[in-house]
């Protein structure tokens, strides 16, 4: 075992011992925190998948992705305005609204992300590496600017559509579980499974994997590179839009630059799982959600960002391929 790996394992072991102590002394609180962390982690995973797919295929840190996530929640809130739902009790209209809003938001965000790729990234495909990175930051500002223009700096209320309150929650052994927590985790799990099937079983999914491995060789095999990359952005935005909508329905509050911090955390999750690795991003997202929740309750929420970005640096220093990454880092 090389020294970097040893360092990585020592840090992991210390963290696990600390958590085990908490789990042993206060099991109820520990399980409760884990459930909140799992729900957060499921949402981070949805965003992290978009980062990892785009990075895998064109090696770009897509800074605008976090704002695509927020934009999904904004557009979803606007669409929900057409329904006369009831926030206090779950009615049939609420169900219809939910069933309509998810596909619409996902498709709209997919279309917007394809537009972003077409305008800001495709013309720069052969430019120096920094150029698309700057346009990504620029597009991030543009999206944040649009949302700021739309609703101003204040937080926006997202209707509390999901079933909640008595009857939709339960307490098992002192641990509170709401329908919302279950909904978030189940929806995210379904979306990730669909994505995995798509990537592994379809022609387009195969084209994406081939393009990510070797773009020139894929092109020689007759794969339309531009179409494949556009499809990657489309699917990434489907997941991010759904993630944003879920976030809005879970927390009921969104603001224009929510995507900045969420995006960085999700990006950390993607790096944690091994950037470019799709199952890695999903697992990384859940782990980062859990770590953030543990840090919030055992270290203090003001230290959570330091912990998360410390992990980001630690992973890259000790294990640059991430948890699941098998690729040997090039020099």
């Amino acid at each position, binding site marked *: 075992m090389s020294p970097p790996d040893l360092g990585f394992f020592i840090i992991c072991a210390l963290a696990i011992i600390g958590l085990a102590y908490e789990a042993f002394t206060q099991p109820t609180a520990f399980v409760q925190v884990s459930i909140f962390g799992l729900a957060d982690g499921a949402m981070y995973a949805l965003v992290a998948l978009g980062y990892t797919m785009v990075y895998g295929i064109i090696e770009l840190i897509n800074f605008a992705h976090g704002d695509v996530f927020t934009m999904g929640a904004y557009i979803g809130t606007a669409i929900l305005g057409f329904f006369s739902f009831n926030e206090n009790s779950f009615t049939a209209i609420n169900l219809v609204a939910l069933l309509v809003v998810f596909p619409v938001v996902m498709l709209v965000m997919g279309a917007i992300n394809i537009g972003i790729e077409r305008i800001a990234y495709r013309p720069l495909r052969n430019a120096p*590496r920094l150029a698309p990175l700057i346009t990504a930051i620029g597009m991030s500002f543009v999206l944040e600017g649009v949302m700021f223009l739309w609703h101003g700096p204040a937080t926006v209320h997202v209707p509390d559509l999901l079933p909640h309150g008595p009857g939709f929650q339960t307490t098992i052994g002192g641990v509170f579980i709401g329908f919302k927590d279950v909904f978030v985790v189940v929806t995210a799990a379904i979306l990730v499974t669909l994505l995995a099937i798509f990537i592994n079983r379809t022609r387009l999914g195969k084209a994406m994997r081939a393009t990510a491995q070797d773009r020139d060789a894929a092109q020689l095999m007759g794969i339309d590179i531009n179409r494949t990359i556009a499809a990657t952005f489309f699917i990434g935005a489907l997941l991010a839009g759904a993630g944003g909508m879920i976030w809005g329905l879970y927390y009921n509050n969104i603001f224009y630059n929510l995507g*900045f911090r969420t995006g960085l955390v999700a990006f950390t999750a993607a790096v944690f799982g091994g950037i470019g690795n799709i199952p890695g991003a999903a697992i990384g997202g859940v782990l980062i959600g859990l770590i953030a929740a543990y840090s919030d309750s055992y270290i203090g929420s003001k230290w959570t*960002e*330091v912990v998360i970005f410390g992990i980001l640096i630690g992973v890259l220093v000790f294990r640059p391929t991430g948890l699941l990454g098998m690729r040997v880092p090039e020099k």
Partner: protein
Amino acid sequence: MALLQRRRMRDRDAMIYGVLLILALAFPATVLYATGSSALISQAGHAGTFVLLAIGLNVVVGFAGLLDLGYAAFFAIGAYTYALFASSQLDSSPLHHSFHLPFWLMIFVGMFVAAAAGVILGFPTLRLRGDYLAIVTLGFGEIVPQLSYNLPQWTGGINAIGGIDSPSLPAWITGPWAGANNIAIIRPDVCPVLGSSTKFAPCFSFGFDPIAFYVLIVIMIIGAVILVGNLHRSRLGRAWMAIREDEVAAAAMGINTVTTKLLAFAIGASFSGFAGAYYGASFGLVSPDQFLFLVSVTVLVMVVLGGMGSIAGVIVGALVIYFVLNSILPQLPSTVESLANTFGLNSLNVQNGDWPGLAQETQRVSFLVYGLILVLMMLLRPQGIFPSRVREQELKHAAVQEDEAAVEAAHAG
């Protein structure tokens, strides 16, 4: 032919430097005569900080081709190093004793502390491929302001460190600017003997005169340009460019790539620390809000927009972006409002229901405009305003040589 072009290119840089120098010298006097206040000079001193930052980041990004997304962290380290040891902040810390060390010493201490942080951060990560460095610096850039928020007993947290000492010239430096009775070197009538006038007069003293800081930053920038220009032409500079073009080939030529990259990273960080100490002294206040991701991005944009690798281009890029961010965008609301009044659209300026009024609405647009500027600049001119032509020349020259070699080979065959 190639020689001629190279000379023309050198002329272009010399011309930019000449114009910038004349503007820098003429600026304070012009502003004082035109506006009668030194507010713009103070802003120019602030812009100078960003020029210095851009020159430093250019070493990392432009010369060595390493992407640094957390440059503001080193800026923060420099600023806090000066602020902690040149204010009364440490009185209220667990140390219960404050220091007031001289600026001229601390600016170099800040520089070395930032460089040391760069080495500590860069050493384990520079062995990895380029993108990982970008991500590590991004994380570092997020951690440093957070630490300063979270350790209020040391850094003052969100309340910032205020009352930072101004630099003072040592007593043995005598001249018209030393002593209590300052003599203005710009305009005698605005700087009479102190106490005899109620007018807030600009005099050459760091205590209350932005011109002093302006002169200091101009001198610092000139020093930085000479230093970085020499580095660029040195053996180290050529090694940086070799690594930027092809790291494997550079390593095969006997360049120690880790040390060379580490030097670029540390030198870039030291410029940031230097600029940070100056910034703390000139602003008199250091708070974590001043070192967020947006600052790192802004400096990176200055470098890329000006033309990576070209020192003159980077200075122009820094000034242009600073002007857009701090002059054009903040003034946009009032400009649009008066424009609407001229065209008889006064009703647009009044708040009405969901419409927050034209000025407010324009203010909301400004962030979007900045984003659009970034995207358009990159699409229209990805190589920057004044790209490093040396690099273009090198590439062109290599192509010509290859052609000649092919012709020779054909003749020989």
